[in-house]
C-alpha cells in the first residue's frame, strides 16, 4: 500500500506511551518544572531576629504562606549564616559524603524556599538521587500500601489488609468509593491488618473532620491527608489556611495519632492558581510550611499532580528534587510513586529506580496492593498486577524496597483468618451477617469483580451502625477476644498502646518486629560506602526468595520425568567406535553427551527421539542417508557439527545438542563458520529440524538449498530460557571426556506414534 509516512510512526503511535499527553514548557502559564516566569531570587532580610523580607517580598506584602514560613520555619539564629553560603556550595555539600546529614538539616532551618529550590535545581538527576539517599531521615527504608476495593467490601478489605501486612508494608491506607462507608472501611482494614503481626500503621483517608473522628475512636493510627498548597489562592480554595492545618496537626498529636502533611508538584496548577511560578519553587514553599507547622513528615513528590508534572520537560527530575527538599528539611518523606504518572510501564519502572536503590521512609505513598480497578485512589505506579515485578526489582538490585514475597498457601490462610475475624466481629457487634459463600468467594478472589459479597449499599448500613453506636477500638478488641481471635486482639491492643507513649509521633516512625523505629533511634547515618542502611545476609536472602526459582535439581527432576516416555520411544544402541564414512550421500548426525542419556527434551519441549526422526526424514527426502554418532569429547554445537562432518563420507554433518541447538557443518570449514545454525532452540519446530535434514542432504549432493530460517517474534528468549540453558548445558559439559572417541549409534524407534 502507498504511504507517505514512515510506518514506524504508526508502530510508535500504537504504544501505550502515546496515550500520555506531553505539554510544552510555558513558564508564564505555570508549565515549568524549575524556572517559573515569576520565580523570585533567593533573599532574606532580618532585623532584631524578625524577618523583614523574604525571597524578594517585603514583610508588609507577605501573603499568608510567606507570613507563616517567616514566623515558624525561618530560624533567625541560623538564617544569616545559611543564606550566605553560595547555592553551588550547598549543592556540593548535599552530595559530599564528608558533610554529615545533620549539618545540612541544621542549615536548612535558615534557608528560604527560593534558596532551597535554587540549590537542588543545581543537581542533576543522579546527584539528586544520591543526595536523597544520604539525606532521608530514617536509616531503614519502608513502604506503604493502598487497600481499597470497588465495592467497599469489608471482607475483601480485611483479607487484602492482611496480605499487605504479610508482604511487609509498614503502613496501610484505605479510602472509599462511597464517602459514608468510611467507618466500615476503617473497621475492616484495622481488623485485617491485625492478622499476622502487630504494628502495621493504618489510615482511612476521608473528609478532614471525619478522619479525625475515626482516629479518635481508635480505628486508625496515622493520617496523611492534611494537604497544603504553595499559593494563597489555591490554599483558600482548598478551604484551609496554614493556621487551620497546623491546628489539625496539633489535634492529631493531642490524640496520639501519627500525622504527616501532603503536598506535591502541580497541585496549584491543577487548581488554577500557579502565579506563574515553577513547580519546584511552589513545592519549596509547601515544604517550609510543613516543617514550620511542626508536622513530622510529608507525603510528597508529585502525588496527584505527578501525571501533570511529568508532562513537562524535567518534570520527573523536579519530583525527585522536591522530595530532596523534604528530607533536607528533616521531614519524613512518603515519596509519592503512587498516582501512576504514565501509561508506559517503562516510564514507571524508570521512575521508581532511584527510590528503590536509594531507599525512602516510605518508597510509595500508596503502592496499590490491590488490582488497578479496585484502587479507589486511582491506579498506582505499582499495583496488585505488578507486585511481583517490584519483588524482582528488589532482588535484581539487592535493594530493600520494604517488601517480602509470600507463598500461595500462606496467602490463602492469612486471607481466611482475616475474613473469619472480621465476620465474627461484625456478627458479634450486631453489624452484619456473613455467609460461608461470601467468605469463600472473597478468600480466593484476586479482585472485587470475582466476589459475591456485600454491596456498597449494605456497607453503608454497617458503616452507619459503627458510627451511630459510637463503637471504639476497645469494643473491637473485646469482640475479637470473645471470638477466640486472641492474637489479633493483642495486635490491636499493641497499636492502641502506641498512642499512649507517643513514641511513633517522632519523625519517620514505623513499627518493626514490635518496636518503634524512627529517625530518633534509627537515624540515617550515611557517610559513604559501608555506612547507612545495608542489607543483612538474612534480609538479602529474603529478597532473593521469590516464587518459582529454578535449580539444578529441578531441571534433573523434570528430565527424569521425561525419561520414561523416551525409554518407550527410542533406543540408542551403542555399536562401538565410529568409523570414517565413505558413502558420498551420507549425513552424519553428532549427538551431544547428554542427548537421550540425561536430557530428554529440547528447550522447545520436543522429545529428542522426535527430533532425530525429523532430521532423518529430511535427510531421506533430500536423497541422503543419516548416520548417527555419539560424541563425548565436546558438548559445543560447532565442534559437534564439525566432528560429525569429518566422519561423514559426504563431508556434511549435523551437530545436535540435547537442548535442541543444531548446526550443519562441512568438514573443511572453521569451527564457528558453519553452513546453517538453529541457535533459538526454544522456538525451533520439528518441521525446522526436518528442513535442516533436507538441506544437509542437499549440500551433500552438491546443491545450494535455501537456508532454513527460524522466525522469531522478538521474544526475550534469553530471559525465558537461559537459566535452564545454563543448567542443562552444564550437565552436558560435565559429561565430556577429553580425547573420548566417537561412537557409532544405531537408533531404534520403538513407539511409532511420536
Amino acid at each position, binding site marked *: 500500500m502507498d504511504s507517505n509516512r514512515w510506518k514506524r510512526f504508526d508502530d510508535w503511535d500504537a504504544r501505550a506511551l502515546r496515550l500520555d499527553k506531553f505539554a510544552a514548557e510555558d513558564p508564564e502559564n505555570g508549565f515549568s518544572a524549575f524556572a517559573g516566569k515569576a520565580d523570585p531570587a533567593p533573599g532574606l532580610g532580618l532585623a532584631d531576629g524578625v524577618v523583614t523580607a523574604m525571597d524578594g517580598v517585603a514583610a508588609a506584602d507577605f501573603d499568608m504562606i510567606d507570613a507563616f514560613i517567616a514566623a515558624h520555619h525561618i*530560624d533567625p539564629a541560623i538564617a544569616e549564616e545559611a543564606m550566605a553560603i553560595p547555592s553551588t556550595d550547598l549543592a556540593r555539600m548535599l552530595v559530599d559524603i564528608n558533610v554529615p546529614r545533620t549539618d545540612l538539616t541544621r542549615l536548612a532551618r535558615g534557608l528560604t524556599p527560593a534558596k532551597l529550590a535554587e540549590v537542588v535545581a543545581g543537581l542533576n538527576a543522579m546527584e539528586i538521587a544520591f543526595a536523597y539517599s544520604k539525606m532521608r531521615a530514617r536509616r531503614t527504608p519502608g513502604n506503604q500500601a493502598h487497600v481499597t476495593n470497588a465495592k467497599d467490601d469489608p471482607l475483601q478489605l480485611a483479607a487484602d489488609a492482611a496480605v499487605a501486612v504479610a508482604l511487609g508494608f509498614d503502613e496501610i491506607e484505605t479510602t472509599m468509593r462511597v464517602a459514608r462507608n468510611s467507618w466500615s472501611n476503617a473497621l475492616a482494614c484495622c481488623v485485617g491488618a491485625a492478622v499476622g503481626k502487630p504494628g502495621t500503621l493504618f489510615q482511612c483517608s476521608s473528609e478532614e473532620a471525619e478522619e479525625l473522628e475515626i482516629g479518635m475512636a481508635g480505628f486508625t493510627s496515622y493520617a496523611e491527608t492534611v494537604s497544603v498548597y504553595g499559593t494563597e489562592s489555591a490554599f483558600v480554595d482548598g478551604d484551609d489556611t496554614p493556621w487551620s492545618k497546623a*491546628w489539625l496537626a496539633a489535634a492529631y*498529636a493531642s490524640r496520639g495519632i501519627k500525622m504527616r502533611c501532603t503536598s506535591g508538584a502541580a497541585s496549584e496548577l491543577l487548581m488554577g492558581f500557579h502565579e506563574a511560578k515553577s513547580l519546584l519553587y511552589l513545592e519549596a514553599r509547601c515544604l517550609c510550611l510543613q516543617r514550620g507547622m511542626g508536622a513530622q513528615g510529608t507525603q510528597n513528590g508529585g502525588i496527584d499532580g505527578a501525571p501533570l508534572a511529568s508532562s513537562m520537560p524535567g518534570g520527573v527530575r523536579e519530583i525527585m528534587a522536591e522530595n530532596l527538599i523534604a528530607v533536607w528539611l528533616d521531614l519524613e518523606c512518603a515519596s509519592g510513586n503512587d498516582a501512576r504518572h504514565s501509561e508506559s510501564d517503562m516510564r514507571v519502572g524508570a521512575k521508581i529506580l532511584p527510590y528503590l536503590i536509594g531507599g525512602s521512609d516510605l518508597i510509595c505513598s500508596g503502592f496499590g496492593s490491590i488490582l488497578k480497578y479496585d484502587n479507589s485512589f486511582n491506579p498506582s505506579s505499582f499495583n496488585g498486577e505488578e507486585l511481583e515485578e517490584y519483588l524482582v526489582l528488589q532482588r535484581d538490585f539487592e535493594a530493600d524496597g520494604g517488601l517480602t514475597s509470600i507463598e500461595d498457601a500462606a496467602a490463602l490462610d492469612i486471607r481466611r483468618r482475616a475474613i473469619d475475624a472480621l465476620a465474627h466481629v461484625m456478627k458479634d457487634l450486631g453489624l452484619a451477617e456473613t455467609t460461608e459463600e461470601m467468605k469463600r468467594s472473597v478468600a480466593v478472589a484476586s479482585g472485587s469483580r470475582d466476589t459475591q459479597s456485600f454491596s456498597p449499599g449494605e456497607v453503608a448500613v454497617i458503616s452507619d451502625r459503627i458510627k451511630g453506636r459510637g463503637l471504639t477500638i476497645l469494643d473491637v478488641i473485646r469482640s475479637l477476644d470473645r471470638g477466640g481471635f486472641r492474637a489479633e486482639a*493483642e495486635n490491636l491492643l499493641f497499636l492502641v*498502646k502506641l498512642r*499512649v*507513649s*507517643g513514641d511513633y509521633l517522632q519523625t519517620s516512625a514505623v513499627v518493626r518486629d514490635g518496636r518503634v523505629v524512627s529517625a530518633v533511634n534509627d*537515624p540515617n547515618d550515611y557517610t559513604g560506602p559501608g555506612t547507612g542502611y545495608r542489607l543483612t545476609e538474612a534480609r538479602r536472602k529474603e529478597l532473593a526468595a521469590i516464587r518459582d526459582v529454578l535449580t539444578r535439581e529441578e531441571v534433573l527432576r523434570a528430565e527424569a520425568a521425561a525419561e520414561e516416555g523416551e525409554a518407550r520411544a527410542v533406543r540408542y544402541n551403542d555399536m562401538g567406535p565410529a568409523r570414517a564414512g565413505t558413502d558420498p550421500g551420507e549425513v552424519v548426525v553428532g549427538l551431544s553427551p547428554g542427548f537421550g542419556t540425561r536430557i530428554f527434551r529440547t528447550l522447545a519441549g520436543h522429545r529428542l527421539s522426535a527430533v532425530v526422526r525429523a532430521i532423518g526424514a529430511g535427510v531421506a527426502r533430500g536423497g541422503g542417508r543419516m548416520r548417527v554418532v555419539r560424541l563425548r569429547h565436546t558438548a559445543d554445537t560447532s565442534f559437534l557439527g564439525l566432528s560429525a562432518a569429518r566422519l561423514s563420507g559426504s563431508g556434511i554433518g549435523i551437530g545436535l545438542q540435547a537442548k535442541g541447538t543444531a548446526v550443519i557443518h562441512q568438514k573443511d570449514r572453521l569451527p564457528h563458520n558453519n553452513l546453517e545454525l538453529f541457535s533459538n532452540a526454544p522456538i525451533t519446530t520439528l518441521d525446522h529440524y526436518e528442513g535442516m535434514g533436507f538441506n544437509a542432504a542437499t549440500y551433500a549432493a552438491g546443491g545450494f538449498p535455501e537456508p532454513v530460517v527460524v522466525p522469531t517474534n522478538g521474544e526475550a528468549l534469553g530471559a525465558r530460557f537461559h537459566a535452564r540453558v545454563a543448567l542443562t548445558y552444564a550437565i552436558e559439559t560435565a559429561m565430556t571426556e577429553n580425547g573420548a572417541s566417537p561412537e557409532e549409534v544405531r537408533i531404534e524407534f520403538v513407539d511409532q506414534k511420536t
Partner: protein
Amino acid sequence: MTRPKDYPLAETSPESVTGPRGKTLDALTMDAVAQGALGVEDIRITPETLARQAGVARAAGRGALAENFERAAEMTRLPEAEIMRIYELLRPGRAGSGAALAEVAERLESEFAAPRLAAFIRQAAVQYDRRNLYRQRF
C-alpha cells in the same frame, strides 16, 4: 544532635508512661480490656508524655516538631467537639471577623490553660485580617 536516652519511652521506661487516669502502659493488658476495666480515657496520650516527646524532638534538632507537641499537650485538655469547632472557625471565611478568634483565644487561656494555642490563634487573627481571610466564601 543528641540521641535522647529515654527514647522510645515505651521501651526504656514503660512504668513512667501513663494514661490520663494514671494507668501505666504495663497495665494496658488484654485481661484489663476483656474485663472492661479500660475505657477510651485510658488509651489517650497525656500532656506530660507529649512534653517528654517534645523534649526528645528538640534534642534531635527538631524545634518546630517540639512546638507542635507542646501545642498538642495543651490541646489534650480540649474536648473533641471544641477542637473541631475551632478548626472550623480557622477555615477561610468562617470567623467573619477578628472578634470571633479573639474570643476563642481568650477562652483557650481562661478555660483550658492553653496559652500557646491562644497565642497561635491571635497570630492567625492578625494574618487573616491582613489577607482578608474573613471574607465570606459561601
